[in-house]
């Protein structure tokens, strides 16, 4: 399933799962929404989101590594500022492509 997902498809999947986890209307979740700062996700919500995305996209994620994977220089800036729907979607897309390449 994952290999057929486009970038748009991955982004929609992220939005849909965030809407479920955070009980938010889908239309309130935009590509540039900051998942912690704008949408109010807590650490436990990120664990929940991680499990749901793993099930939906059939990939393995490590929620604790998300601050690192969104920026090679983890010390630069605030993770919460950079942790947007778009950034997470791009990371997931890269993970899917890496999995497909390794398959």
């Amino acid at each position, binding site marked *: 399933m994952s290999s057929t997902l486009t970038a748009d498809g991955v982004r929609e999947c992220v939005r849909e799962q965030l809407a479920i986890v955070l009980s938010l209307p889908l239309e309130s979740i935009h590509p540039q929404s900051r998942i912690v700062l704008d949408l109010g996700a807590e650490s*436990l*919500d990120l*664990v*929940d989101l991680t*499990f749901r995305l*793993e099930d939906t996209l059939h990939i*393995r994620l*490590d929620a*604790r590594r998300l601050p690192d994977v969104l920026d090679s220089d983890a010390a630069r800036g605030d993770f919460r500022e950079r942790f947007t729907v778009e950034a997470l979607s791009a990371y997931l897309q890269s993970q899917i492509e890496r999995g497909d390449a390794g398959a």
Partner: protein
Amino acid sequence: MPGRERSVAVVLGGTGDLGGAIARRLARPGKELVLGYLQNRDRAEKAACDLRKLGATVHLVEGNVASPETLGRIATLVEERGGRCDHLVHSVAVTGFKPLSDVKANQWDLILRVSTLSLLEAAQHLARSLERAGGSIVALSSAGSVRFVPRYGALGPAKAALEAVVRQLAIELAPRGIRVNAVRAGLIEGSVARALSDDVREDVMRRSPWGRLGTPEEVAASAAFLLSDEARWITGHVLDVDGGWSISA
């Protein structure tokens, strides 16, 4: 049990503070340990290396144990290794450290699924293997199941439900020769204690008859006893392992 007889133990949460201590307690030549862990491959590899030095054969299974897919992989591995499971240890929990009244519905679901339902599902996946071995199950509970713990999220209710699952399974699985017990640990040194505030930690130590927190090794010794044949007439029991804190606090 003879010291070098081959046996298999599945330890869910086997690289955490408590699960890791139990795995070390069980490790010996002839022992096959299947360690389920969620994250941190490096820590899991280090734990496996240490256990192999004790003579055990170690298999690492990464994944969310609340997922049937992960439990299915573990059950398949056990089947491939001979199909017997002598010990199942459930040392898995998740919570957000905040008041219960602030816990949201999705967080409640996640905490109960990971911390409680995964025990039931693991027992279901491994029941045949446990039955073949005349095996036993030990689940790690905590004092939050019966007492107020500040900022414990929904983990207290999850642990209370876990203990109810233990009692229910103990009766249902007895005809198949499988025992089921729990260890209700007080606050121990490690990641949970570090996640709590200094005030909570100090309050626990002040009210403890021994004036300190427990250690993972002390809890592991009790879990190993309940798993062992020495406890063959004990099932459906929740053993307080807290240095007397629960009766003095």
